[in-house]
């Protein structure tokens, strides 16, 4: 089966002379939830920008649903929805109008749009705020609007950058429940987060990025092995493996 997202030898960054990402290669299969983890400045957001097509790779290739952005931009873009790290809302639109805009942009049938809109507003406890402008929402609520818009589009791939920032416990729970639900329906989630315990409980595979290179990827066991943690030990948590991978020199030094 074809992977939903294929990244091969991705090297990129803002300047060709100083690449931030060094030869990233990974895949995201249908129905998978993948956690991208790394320290601040490891290149997570840059990798996401390349996947979104906001930045052009210096080398390598990115395919979503088998298409590159250049060969089929419409197909590529309609296969993914994005939740940015800081909410990027249009100040002049209300919560409901944002949903309408996404519905139109992703060509969701009007009837389905109305149904999904009501259920999302309800699930994220945003029904009383449906007519509110972005400026009148708290940061957490703005993040909820971003998430609701992504979920409304129901794409094959969700690219989510730090989704839990500013969300209240109920919001985090609703989001995780929804993400599990969409993966069961066959969509994939590519999520970057610093909350390792949550990533560990919900993601099936992990990509550890350090100084722009992948230092480990795979299941929890694969990552623990890469970090040199003994199998079956109590220390075999994602957090411990991550600490060993990035604090011990990462991509540029031996681990464990």
């Amino acid at each position, binding site marked *: 089966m074809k992977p939903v997202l294929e990244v091969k030898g991705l090297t990129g960054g803002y300047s060709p002379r100083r690449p931030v990402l060094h030869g990233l290669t990974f895949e995201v299969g249908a129905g998978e939830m993948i956690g991208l983890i790394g320290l601040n400045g490891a290149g997570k957001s840059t990798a996401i920008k390349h996947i979104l097509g906001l930045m052009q790779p210096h080398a390598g290739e990115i395919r979503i649903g088998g298409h590159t952005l250049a060969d089929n931009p419409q197909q590529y873009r309609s296969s993914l929805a994005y939740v940015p790290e800081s909410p990027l809302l249009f100040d002049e639109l209300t919560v409901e109008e944002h949903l309408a805009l996404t519905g139109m942009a992703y060509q969701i049938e009007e009837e389905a749009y109305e149904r999904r809109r009501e259920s999302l507003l309800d699930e994220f406890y945003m029904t009383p705020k449906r007519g509110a*402008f972005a400026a009148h929402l708290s940061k957490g609520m703005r993040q909820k609007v971003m998430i609701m818009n992504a979920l409304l589009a129901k794409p094959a791939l969700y690219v989510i950058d730090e989704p839990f920032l500013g969300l209240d416990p109920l919001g985090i729970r609703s989001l995780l429940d929804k993400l599990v639900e969409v993966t069961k329906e066959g969509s994939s989630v590519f999520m970057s987060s610093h909350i390792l315990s949550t990533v560990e409980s919900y993601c099936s595979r992990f990509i550890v990025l350090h100084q722009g290179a992948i230092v480990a990827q795979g299941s929890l066991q694969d990552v623990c092995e890469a970090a040199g943690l003994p199998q079956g030990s109590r220390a075999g948590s994602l957090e411990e493996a991550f600490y060993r991978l990035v604090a011990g020199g990462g991509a540029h030094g031996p681990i464990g």
Partner: protein
Amino acid sequence: MDRSVDSLWQARSSDFWRRSAVPYFRYIAQSGLPGVIVMLLLAGMAGYGMLLRNMPEHFPITLVGVAVLTPIICWSPLRTWLREADIVFLVPREAEMPAYLRRSFRYNGMACAAAVLLLCGIYIPLYLAANGRTSAVLIVCAALLLKALQLGSAWRERQLVHAGTRRSMRLLRWAATAVGVASLLHTELWKTAIYLAVVIGLFALLYKRLPRYPIPWLQLIEEERRTRRRYTVFFGAFTDVPTEAAPVKPRRYLSWMASRIRYRKEHAFIYLYAFTLIRTELGGILIRLTGLGVFTGFLSAHSGLWSGWGAAGVCLLFVWLSGIQLSALAQAHRHSVWRHVYPLPEQIRHDAVLRVDRAAALACAVIIWLPQGLLLPPQGYMVQAAASLGLSLLYVLIVRPGRVRRKLAVDPDED
């Protein structure tokens, strides 16, 4: 390094003019606006001279005086250059702030006094020609005194804790000032003096009783943000200006139109741009400009300025000015990430900007032309009315779309 709040104010003020205003003057000069303003001034002076020589017997001089002088006396802006970050960095120095704010009062006070003197200079000759009873010197002194009171009163308003009270007090202040100006121009001085003394006493009592902040930080930051935004939108009509978050107003009396846009993929950006136009400062400027166009058009068409050709010129001028302002719409959302993320071709966005722009330009043009259409034909100036409509439509439907298309073709994100 001098770290006094006084030097901070100075640095911020010169920084604003040096970086955020002066660099754009060149683009304004290139747009041809100064030429139009000079023409408008010349035309205005000619009309003013004519009115001065042939002052109609029942000219409503007091009413005109209230309409001209009240806004300039009451409107008391305050540039404080304060920003969000000052909540962290300047609030701890609140005790030093009176020195900082004094500079703002001086800065705006001088500009406001100059504006009052200018409008008095325009109005008083008309007042004397219409045999007004109060002496010119007295009007000037009273106007300046009122202005000083307004500056203080507007500051007290800013300090008020509740937004509702702030609005009510402002309304009350404008109404009381309008009555004061009318009284100054129309009745004996002692009556005006008594009225003003009573009103000042009442206002002082009210301000004393209402809860207020020593320094209304949030209010001042918001006011400064709005002012900066206005400059940005204005300069944005002439060139690409780095934008800040736009303040939005719901404007339900117009936004219902955008809500009725049909739910279709092709309409996604039309939906967005229609709301952008209606709810942002751009919409506000356009509404005010159209209103001013209708008002000026009404006056010039009513008096059949220069056998109707003057009126037609005024109409064209405002249609052109509204078009210039409207072209800032093409700049909106240029740097938005969603422009790249949404599965919509760039062409759909371009078409949407063009359609919203054309619809809005057409609506403004027709509204601005209405006084000409209604008032010129009965005076026998049919050709002038038709010409102003024809040329307005030519500009809106043929000339503008090409310009907007060229503006859109310059993509800042592609390098």
